[in-house]
């Protein structure tokens, strides 16, 4: 039934796990971010996301519109329980490419060569973290990857998960701490949710499972924020980031090659 | 008997073309051409070539020789200073031809062939080395006669016709500018 399928996909885009959840998680994360990084008071912190949304609405250019649309598209690919998009139609690469495109388009107006170089480096490491387990499992379905508990593949899964987590601050431009771009608000859920989908075993297909998914995703966001705070406090970490990610990515690749030879 | 006539004809042809090669006057050239034609005709006849062809060859050679008297250097002027290399070439040519056709030099046909080869080789040497139009034309006629002797009736007639035809071309250097 194409019409029914269409309706379900529209719901996925607009409501869950699409626009509504994306904005909700993004607003929460941005508020936390404002507190943790901006050292703002609770009131300003709570109003910060609203300000960003207001800006987005006041100056909606074609590209500004594209960023949330791509983010929402990426969100529909998450292994969120009760996701109306059929599990067989979800795809890690769709999410990854949509997110990468959203990041670049979101930062077009504030393009700076150094920041862009760092972003590119982080994105490449992030890609290694997401795709290497997929290579071994020969699957791009997030929920299938998340469900992998084969002992031989666990080292790779853990290493790739850690690398993906380390990449998040760079992808969200938390390190180095920048004036929050409007686009970032829309990236929190798909980025953190993708990590949850690929590296955390999926929960049950019910409301409890959905809540668990959102909770874990928020946890991942908190971890990313924590890493950003740490980088802000420890100068050495800030200096090493994101160059630190390159050897980590190399290690993940090496483990991937080893695993493929062994299995 | 025919062998002796053939060898004599070949010797006469060689003498004629040598004369042609060392002559810097129109008379010397014509004499050499006529002698070569006579020698070639003799050798060809001894080799049993058709009389018509032999006669044509002789006639063509003589006609070419007579026509060459129209223009060119004055007098005989045979063996002018600097002719030694041409004489040496004449000797080398006959030796070379003998080497190639050694197996059949004794036969009349072989002798005629040697004569043709020698005449052709020396005539070519003359064409390649001379700067004079009339000398080149005379050597060209000899070349045609020599090549003609290497074939049958067709070759003989063709050689004769071409030799006479070349004789008809004006050998005066003045025509260079005009033509």
């Amino acid at each position, binding site marked *: 039934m194409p019409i029914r399928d269409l309706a379900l996909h529209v719901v*996925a885009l607009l409501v869950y796990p699409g626009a509504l959840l994306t904005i909700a998680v993004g607003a929460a994360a941005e508020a936390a971010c404002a507190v943790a990084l901006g050292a703002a008071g609770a009131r300003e912190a709570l109003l910060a996301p609203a300000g960003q949304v207001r800006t987005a609405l006041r100056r*909606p250019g074609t590209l500004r519109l594209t960023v949330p649309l791509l983010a929402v598209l990426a969100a529909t690919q998450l292994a969120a329980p009760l996701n109306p998009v*059929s599990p067989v139609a979800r795809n890690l690469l769709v999410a990854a490419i949509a997110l*990468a495109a959203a990041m670049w388009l979101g930062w077009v107006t504030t393009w700076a060569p150094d920041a862009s170089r760092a972003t590119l480096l982080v994105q490449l490491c992030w890609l290694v973290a997401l795709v290497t387990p997929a*290579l*071994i499992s020969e*699957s791009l379905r997030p929920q299938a990857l998340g469900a992998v508990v084969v002992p031989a593949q666990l080292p790779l899964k853990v290493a790739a998960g850690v690398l993906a987590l380390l990449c998040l601050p760079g992808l969200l431009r938390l390190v180095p701490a920048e004036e929050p771009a409007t686009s970032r608000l829309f990236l929190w859920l798909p980025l953190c949710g993708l990590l949850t989908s690929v590296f955390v075993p999926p929960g049950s297909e019910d409301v409890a499972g959905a809540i668990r998914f959102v909770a874990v995703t928020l946890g991942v966001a908190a971890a990313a924020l924590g890493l950003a705070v740490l980088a802000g406090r420890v100068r050495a970490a800030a200096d090493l980031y994101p160059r630190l990610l390159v050897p980590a990515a190399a290690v993940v690749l090496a483990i991937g090659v080893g695993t493929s030879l062994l299995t | 008997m025919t062998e002796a006539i053939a060898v004599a004809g070949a010797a006469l042809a060689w003498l004629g073309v040598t004369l042609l090669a060392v002559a810097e006057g129109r008379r010397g050239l014509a004499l050499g051409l006529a002698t070569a034609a006579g020698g070639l005709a003799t050798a060809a006849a001894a080799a049993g070539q058709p009389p018509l062809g032999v006669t044509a060859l002789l006639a063509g050679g003589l006609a070419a020789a007579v026509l060459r008297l129209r223009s060119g250097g004055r007098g005989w002027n045979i063996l002018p200073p600097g002719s030694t290399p041409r004489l040496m070439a004449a000797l080398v040519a006959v030796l070379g031809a003998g080497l190639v056709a050694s197996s059949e030099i004794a036969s009349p046909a072989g002798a005629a062939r040697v004569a043709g080869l020698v005449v052709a080789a020396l005539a070519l040497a003359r064409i390649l080395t001379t700067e004079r139009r009339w000398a080149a034309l005379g050597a060209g006629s000899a070349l045609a006669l020599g090549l003609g002797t290497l074939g049958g009736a067709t070759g003989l007639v063709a050689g004769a016709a071409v030799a006479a035809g070349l004789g008809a071309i004006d050998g005066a250097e003045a025509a260079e500018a005009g033509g």
Partner: protein
Amino acid sequence: MPLASLLLPPVLLVVAALAGWVMGRAGVAGGRLAAAGGAWAAIAVLAVAWFATGRTPLEQSTGTTIAGAPLILRFDAVTVLFWLAVLVPAALLLTFQRRSSGEAGMAALATAAALGALAAGSLVVAAFGLATCASLVLVLRCTDELGALRAFWPALTAAWLLLAWTAVLLQATAGTSAYDAVPVTALGVPLLVLLALAALLGSGLVPWRSWISDAWDGRRLEAGTLGVALLVPLGFAPLVRAYGMGGGQLPSALAGLVLAALGVAAALGAAIRAQAAASRRGVLAEAVPFAGGMVLLALGVGTPLGMVAALTGLAGVGVAAGLAPLAADRRGPLSAVAIAVLAGVPPALLFGAWLLGLQAALEAGELAGFLAMAAAAAWLLALAAAARAARLPLAPPDAEEAPSRAGDAAGVAVALAGGVGLTALIAALSIPAAAEVMPPAARAVQPVVSAAAILAPNTLAVGTASGGWAAALLGGPLIALGLAGQVVARALARRDGAGERPVLVVEPAGGVEPLFEPPLSGLPERFVAALRSLRTPEQYRSILQPAMLERAAASGRPWLWIAATVAMAIAVTR
């Protein structure tokens, strides 16, 4: 009807070309209209001829010869797909680019030649067609600077020569170069290497800057970019047919992997050049090489899914070849969207095709999977380059800018429509075409290329073993939301009285430095320069002087003639 269907589209274009030429002579400015009309009519006729006549393949041996070789034409799903991949961009460019009547006529003729070449039923006819089309494109490009042709002519000449040589080698070993008649074992690895080399040169798919990018160097884009749209698919065609000649596979799996690696290298090279481009034209110039590299990756994988992905990607190459020139020389939201589409942003056709290609590689095993990862990295780089393009100047200072608002709108529309209709495209064209070159084995009942393995059952989604993509169900609403958002944005902007504030119109303040300097940049130029500077070593100059040798032969007394003759005589008589 079959033969007519095979002949009518090129004939329409030839008629359009003649009309354009006559109009040009008469000083009437209707040639462009005629050429565009001819191209669109050819598309319509093709669609009707193929889909309304039962989609039955036709191999027509005309009984006549062309250039001394039997003229064999083939009209099957592969031909149709390739024709569409050529006709759609050609129609777009002929419609929206500025051309004189004469130029339009020649362009239509070149397009007809390309169709003829793609309908070739044998390698030798394909070589003739490629050479003919390249010749016509060269004439079209004669208005460019000769520098822009420096890479084009040698590459295309080498391509048709290698193709012709492959054909004669096939004739020597198998007695024919007809795709259908060549024995499966005839196409060995050496022949494949020649064929692949011809294909790569013909379609400009090399890791360094090729004639495709050079086509953007001229002051005008019209001739060069049309050439790209016509010749790149032409280069791919023999490679796709090679699968058919090999009974659905290449003579060696390793050869396939090498091809795939070359594809990744080409895509990576294009992305690297794009991120370092000095103008937006420089970025757009790399769109087709990048798309071509992705196609080659999928083609090299050699699985049915890979072939389907490659053939779908070829349609994407067509879209890129048509859209990129029309998106050049304009700023504004539409142009920005066009660049994003060309960089593979969902849900456009390029995105869907590349996604399918990466999935095919991933499903083909670990080695191909790592190639897929490299290709995905190149994709990310291309996205970065597209973002950087917003801040670049439109074109080099001496360029003749030719903005086309309607053109880029049409191009974007085609790309997005192709993306949303990806499933239909795959079902109607790619899968039948792949099945054509990957036939089932002798006694096999199941087809090698199965729609069930590529399209999700009862949905409008693509669904392979590794993952899916609901092109219509997610892409369609996404575009609708985007359009709705745009309308709202305009309304809000009007309410504020500010007019539309195009976010991407960032006037460049000087050049934007690249993310990184391309490694080995200028290597081919340096190599050519090194070759040019090769000289005979000093100590041998006295004995190796062809000119002196020639003077000795040609003038004065011919002692050299005699010496050469004597020397050769001694050589053969010893």
